[in-house]
C-alpha cells in the first residue's frame, strides 16, 4: 500500500510529501492480454452453453429445468465480472477498502433479489389463507396450486360435500368476482388497473379486448354487454377482489 504508514516517512522539509510519488501496481500488457483472451473464451463458452442446451433439448425431446439455463449463463458472467474487477479494475492490487465497498454493494443486490424471490416463490404458501384477496398474476400456476391446497383443507375440515360447496363459493368470488364495477376506476392503493387501450392491440385475447379496461370508468354499463365468456380466464392484471 502506498500509504501504509505515512508517519514513518514524514519529512519535515517536505511535510506535504509533494516530491513523493505514488507507487502503484503495474499490471503489464501480458497479463492484461491473458485476461482478455480468457474473457473472450468465456463469452464464446456462454454462447456455446446456450446453444448446447437447445441441442440437448432437441435430442431428449423435452426442455431442461429453467434454472439450468440461468445457472450456466450467470455463473460464467460472475467469473467474467470477477476477472474484470480483479485485474482490469485492479481491485486485487488496490486498497482493500474498495473491494469491501464492492462486496457490500453486491450483498445489498443479493438482498433485493432474495427478498423478491421469497415473495414470488412463496405466494402459494400464503394463498391458502389469503386466496380470496389475492389478485391473479403471472401464469396463475402459483395461485392454482394454492387453490388446490385450500380446497383440500376445506374438504378436510367440513367434509367432502360441504367443503366442496364452500370452495365453490370462494372460487366464484375470486375467479370472476367483482370485476371492478363497484369502483369507477378500479384502483386501490396497492393495485393499479390496466388503463383503456393500453394493450388493446396486443392480441385477440388481450386484457383490453376482454372488457376490464373498456369497462373501467363505466359504472352504469349493463351486465349483458360484458364481453367475458364463462370459460375465459380473467385478465392477469385486470382482476381484483374487494379484499378482506
Amino acid at each position: 500500500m502506498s500509504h501504509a504508514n505515512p508517519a514513518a516517512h514524514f519529512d519535515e522539509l517536505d511535510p506535504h510529501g509533494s516530491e513523493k510519488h505514488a507507487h502503484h501496481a503495474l499490471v503489464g500488457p501480458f497479463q492484461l492480454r491473458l485476461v482478455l483472451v480468457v474473457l473472450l473464451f468465456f463469452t464464446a463458452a456462454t454462447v456455446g452453453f446456450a446453444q448446447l442446451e437447445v441441442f440437448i433439448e432437441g435430442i431428449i425431446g423435452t426442455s431442461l429445468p429453467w434454472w439450468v439455463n440461468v445457472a450456466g449463463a450467470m455463473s460464467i458472467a460472475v467469473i467474467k465480472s470477477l476477472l474484470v474487477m480483479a485485474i482490469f479494475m485492479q481491485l486485487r492490487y488496490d486498497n482493500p477498502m474498495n473491494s469491501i465497498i464492492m462486496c457490500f454493494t453486491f450483498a445489498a443486490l443479493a438482498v433485493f433479489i432474495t427478498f423478491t424471490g421469497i415473495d414470488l416463490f412463496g405466494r402459494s404458501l400464503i394463498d391458502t389463507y389469503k386466496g380470496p384477496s389475492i389478485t391473479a398474476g403471472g401464469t396463475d400456476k402459483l395461485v392454482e396450486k394454492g387453490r388446490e391446497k385450500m380446497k383440500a383443507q376445506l374438504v378436510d375440515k367440513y367434509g367432502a360435500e360441504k367443503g366442496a360447496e364452500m370452495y365453490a363459493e370462494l372460487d366464484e368470488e375470486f375467479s370472476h368476482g367483482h370485476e371492478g364495477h363497484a369502483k369507477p376506476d378500479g384502483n386501490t392503493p396497492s393495485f393499479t388497473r390496466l388503463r383503456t387501450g393500453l394493450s388493446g392491440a396486443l392480441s385477440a385475447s388481450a386484457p383490453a379486448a376482454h372488457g376490464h379496461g373498456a369497462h373501467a370508468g363505466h359504472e352504469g354499463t349493463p351486465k349483458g354487454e360484458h364481453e367475458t365468456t364463462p370459460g375465459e380466464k380473467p385478465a392477469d392484471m385486470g382482476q381484483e377482489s374487494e379484499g378482506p
Partner: protein
Amino acid sequence: MTTLDSRDNRPLWQRYKHGHHWRTQAEEFDGAKLGFWLFLTTEVLLFGGIFCAYAIFRTLYPEAWKEGSSVLDWKVGGLNTAVLLISSYTMAVSIYYIQVGKISRARLNLMFTFFCGALFVTLKLLLEYTPKWSGWFFFLDPALSHHTVDASAGHGLLGLFRFVEGYGGKRPGSLFEFGFGHDPHLPLWWSVYYCGTSIHALHVLIGMALIFRVWRGAGKGVYGPTYYTGVEIAGLYWHLVDLIWIFLFPLLYLIH
C-alpha cells in the same frame, strides 16, 4: 492544482501539486479512487433495479420472456460483447503505458478504446434499435435471414437497408402496440430490454466523453507516470460499463 510558473519547463504532470489537504499525492490518488468506487456502487444499484425487474417479470411471465428474447440475435450481442471486452483491455493497457511513461502509445490505446465505444453504439443503433423501431434492416444484419424482405418497399439509403413488413413498430412507444405479439406481457419484456440497454448505451456515451477528455489531456502532458488520476478514473468507469454488459448480454440474449 498545476502551477502556472512560466520558468518551469517540465511537463504538466511533473509540475502537478496535490491538494493542500492531502498529506501526499498518493493519498490524494487513493482518496479519488475511493470516492469513485463509492460512485460505482450507486451505478451497480441503478442497474440492480433493472436486473431485479428482469427477475420478477421473468418469473411471472416466462412465456413473454421466451418470445421476447427469441427476437434478439445473439450474434449481434456477442459481437458487441467482444467489442466492449477488447476496449476494456485497451483501456487497461493505456493506463499501464502512462504509468511507464509511454504517453503516445497510451493515447493510441485511448483512441482505440474511444472508437470501440463508438462502434458499440453504432452497432446497437444499426442492428438493434433501428430495425425494431422502423422495420428497416441493415443489409448485413444476420437477423435479416429470419424474415421475408418486402420487395415492394424498395431499398432505402443507397440500397443499404431492407424493409421487413411486420417487424416494424416493435418499440414500447405508440401505446404498446404489438399487433403480432402473442403474449400480452410482451411490453414488459421490451420495457426491461430498452431500459437496460439504453441506460447502458448512455453510459457508453458518457464513458467515451471521459476517454476523449483524458486522451486530449494526455496530449497536453497533463498525465504521466506520477500523475494519472483522471485516466484511472475514466478507466474504472469504462470497466464498469463492460461489467454491466457482461450481465446484460446473457440475460437478454442467451437465457430463453
